[in-house]
């Protein structure tokens, strides 16, 4: 649940999402769910010319499984805390595996 937990802190931040089919979408992250589906508001499709079907789209629900990258604002990531969270997650997983 680390990534879920992590993305939750990015709500209302502007992120850019690159999908596995190379579409890149910038928008305000409104919500994320446990499958890492992402809801973006006020979107802007980079390279829109290639994707005319998205020309009139304003908000978007993106299925988590098709996301390749999420580009985040660095200032909104607490690296130290994230490290700790990762350690906890790892410890947690190890504990469950046992």
């Amino acid at each position, binding site marked *: 649940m680390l990534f879920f937990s992590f993305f939750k802190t990015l709500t209302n931040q502007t992120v850019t999402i690159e999908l596995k089919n190379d579409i890149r979408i910038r928008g305000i992250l409104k*919500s994320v769910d446990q499958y890492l589906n992402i809801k973006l508001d006020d979107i802007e499709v980079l390279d829109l010319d290639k994707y005319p*079907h998205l020309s009139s789209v304003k908000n978007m629900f993106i299925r988590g499984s098709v996301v390749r990258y999420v580009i985040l604002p660095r200032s909104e990531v607490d690296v130290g805390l994230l490290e700790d969270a990762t350690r906890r997650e790892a410890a947690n997983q190890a504990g469950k595996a046992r």
Partner: protein
Amino acid sequence: MERLSLNENPPNAPQQRQPQQQNTLGPASQPTSGPPQLPPQMFTTAAQLLDLTDKKLVLVLRDGRKLIGVLRSWDQFANLVLQDTVERIYAGKLYADVPRGIFLVRGENVLLLGEVDLDREDEIPTSVTKAPFEEVFELKKKEDSQRKAGDKKRHRELSALGFEPEHSGEILF
């Protein structure tokens, strides 16, 4: 009578309950210093689809289909029901619309779901023009087979390097 229930605050109201003003002002009023503690139900598929319900959407499927229709129902897997659906096929600089009716889409085939801005939907980008279905369809078939060949090659090379295909061997559009 409905008000009556207002006074029936549960004796043990949820502890994590936020101040009532939250309800009225919404997250917008939250301090901008960082994310407030948001209620867990906000982070559900349901919450994400909630305000797309009964809206006109563009649905892009994993196989590249683009469906335009009104989202009528959904579930936690993002299985979707679309009404008055039109499939719009694109090829080259052309596109064509095919009326399709009601769609029930299995969630795993959904790539993305975009809410159509009703003000802008008729502003078709100048890069594409409408054409008869047959013409577009033929062109698309050609394009698809070309792309498939290219993707196949790419996947072969990537998998030699240890990359698992990003989408279980299927081609995403």
